[in-house]
């Protein structure tokens, strides 16, 4: 017990340190990209809860992300709501949408759920176009820029970074609370074996729906932040491959790790650009090889790698402290 508290405290402190130091070393543009990575990380956090802990393979996280983004944009562009004030609504609407997606999940097994959610992800951009009068159709929607307070007036990127970080902190807190509570244990039980879990009294329906709701709420929150960061959204940013990219981020980072979600977010935001800069034509090839390479070398994702590293460094006798390992 003490070990876990110490580890959590160290992780949090380490995280805060890195987060605080980043702005000093990065240019405005790079910091903006980190903020975008954070918005993805919030969505990945939700997916970690759903996929990593609850074992539900959802390939529509990008859709829920997009729903959150559009809720923010519509509330802001059409109704003049302040960008930050739209975020709870974005999370709520996405949670509802997630429940709708989650309903079939009650009856479906892993692969089947993956396929259905993939279909939803493929259909989403078309739906946005169809509802053009609400969503602005192909032309997209603008979002007011988030004005920084007086003392940061020269550094809007820093302000956006802090706002994103704040939202991410809230998201991480929610996930942590869920995991250490009854819901978290129920989630993991039903992932490991739904029949046994049910026999032990876990209400599978409630558990699965809760997982979908919270995961989608986080995706929506991430989407709302994304919309604010970009100042403009259009269906082109929410195609089916986005859902796949978020899954990739989740697994590369470590699908049962909160820190992993942030690593995953950074991976999917920066690595494609880096590889593209190395060689324009070969860029994607290098990205794909990097992706496959990470999977071959680090099964638990980068977070799993870090875990093993810290365990080895501190020579802990029981390195299996992380709740719910994926094996």
């Amino acid at each position, binding site marked *: 017990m003490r070990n876990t508290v110490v580890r959590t405290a160290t992780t949090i402190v380490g995280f805060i340190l890195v987060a605080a130091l980043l702005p000093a070393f990065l240019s405005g543009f790079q910091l903006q990209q980190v903020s975008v990575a954070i918005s993805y990380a919030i969505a990945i956090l939700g997916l970690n809860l759903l*996929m990593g802990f609850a074992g539900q*393979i959802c390939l529509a996280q990008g859709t829920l992300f997009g729903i959150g983004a559009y809720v923010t944009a519509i509330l802001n562009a059409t109704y003049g709501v302040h960008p930050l004030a739209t975020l709870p609504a974005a999370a709520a609407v996405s949670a509802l949408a997630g429940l709708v997606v989650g309903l*079939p999940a009650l*009856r*479906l*097994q*892993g*692969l*089947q759920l*993956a*396929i*259905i959610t*993939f*279909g*939803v992800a*493929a*259909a989403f951009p*078309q*739906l946005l*176009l*169809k509802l053009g009068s609400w969503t602005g159709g192909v032309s997209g929607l603008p979002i007011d820029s988030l004005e920084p307070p007086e003392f940061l007036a020269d550094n809007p990127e820093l302000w956006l970074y802090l706002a994103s970080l704040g939202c991410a902190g809230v998201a991480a807190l929610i996930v942590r609370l869920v995991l250490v509570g009854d819901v978290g244990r129920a989630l993991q039980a039903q992932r490991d*074996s739904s*029949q*046994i879990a049910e026999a032990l009294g876990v209400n599978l329906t409630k558990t699965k729906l809760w997982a979908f709701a919270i995961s989608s709420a986080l995706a929506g929150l991430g989407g709302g932040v994304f919309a604010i960061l970009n100042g403009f959204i259009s269906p082109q940013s929410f195609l*089916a491959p986005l859902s*796949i990219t978020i*899954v*990739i981020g989740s*697994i*590369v980072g470590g*699908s049962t790790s909160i820190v992993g979600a942030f690593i995953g977010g950074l991976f999917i935001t920066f690595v494609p650009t880096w590889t593209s800069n190395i060689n324009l*034509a*070969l*860029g*994607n*090839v290098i*990205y*794909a*090889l990097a*992706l*496959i390479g990470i*999977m*071959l070398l680090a*099964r638990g994702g980068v977070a799993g790698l870090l875990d093993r590293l810290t365990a080895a460094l501190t020579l802990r006798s029981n390195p299996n402290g992380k709740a719910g390992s*994926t*094996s």
Partner: protein
Amino acid sequence: MTLFVQIVVSGLATGAIYSALALALVLIFRATNVVNFGQGEMATFSAYCTWQLSLWGLPLWLSIAIGLICSFVLGILAFRLFVRPLLEAPVEATVVVTLGMFVLFQAMVTWLWGAEQKPFPSLFPDGSFSLGDVRILASSAGTLLVLVVLAAAIGCLFAFTRLGLSMRAAAFDRVRSVLVGVNVERMLMLGWGFAAVIGMVAAVLVAPRLFLSPTMMTPILFYGLAAATVGGWDSPLGAIAGGLLVGVSESLGANYIGLLGADMRIAVPIVLTLFVLLVKPVGLFGSQKVTKL
């Protein structure tokens, strides 16, 4: 009435394309218990190799023959390099690796041949024939014929031959198959090799219609997955039937459900797949499985 039949026929033509990919997906799943999200792109890559060979002057049949051998080798290589190391790992890792293959093969095609679409020679004569007022393309009919024959052959392989039985055993339970003398690794390798070959056949069949391009199979992926699900993941003929069903239902939905229209027609296969999953989860032509606790 003629319009209705024509809509069904055009649905069948599109469905044949879905069936092609579905067959390759089902084969890999049956033989190795893995859903290969990168199947379509691997197939596209092999088709490009064939195209390049024919561009260098080889006659079409020879290019295709060499292409089939190359795709077999490619399948085995993909298995040994990317999938075998992850046999003991959680399923998510394999999912990501197949997604990685999706990106890899599409990227390699773009890198080697550029993004322009290219014409691909058709195995079937151009033109169409008419049944009454309804026009049927020779290539659509030919594609379906080839697919049905292939599916039947694969089905027979799995059901009636020792090799097929060994492959199914290796996919179903790796640990215990070793105990009864199945060379699991070799079976899995063969499975990937065969699936790659079938994938290439699928690509060669659809390329003349869709034009050869790096993203030729990408929009089809979901439809292929849906078709395999509707038909049943352990039934090759079911994959064909599933593809046709998906194609026809989509075509009918687009033309007769005003609310959907052509742009939202993907909703029809989604609902169809969901319906089948809720009513008969193993697919229309699949067989019951027993799950262990």
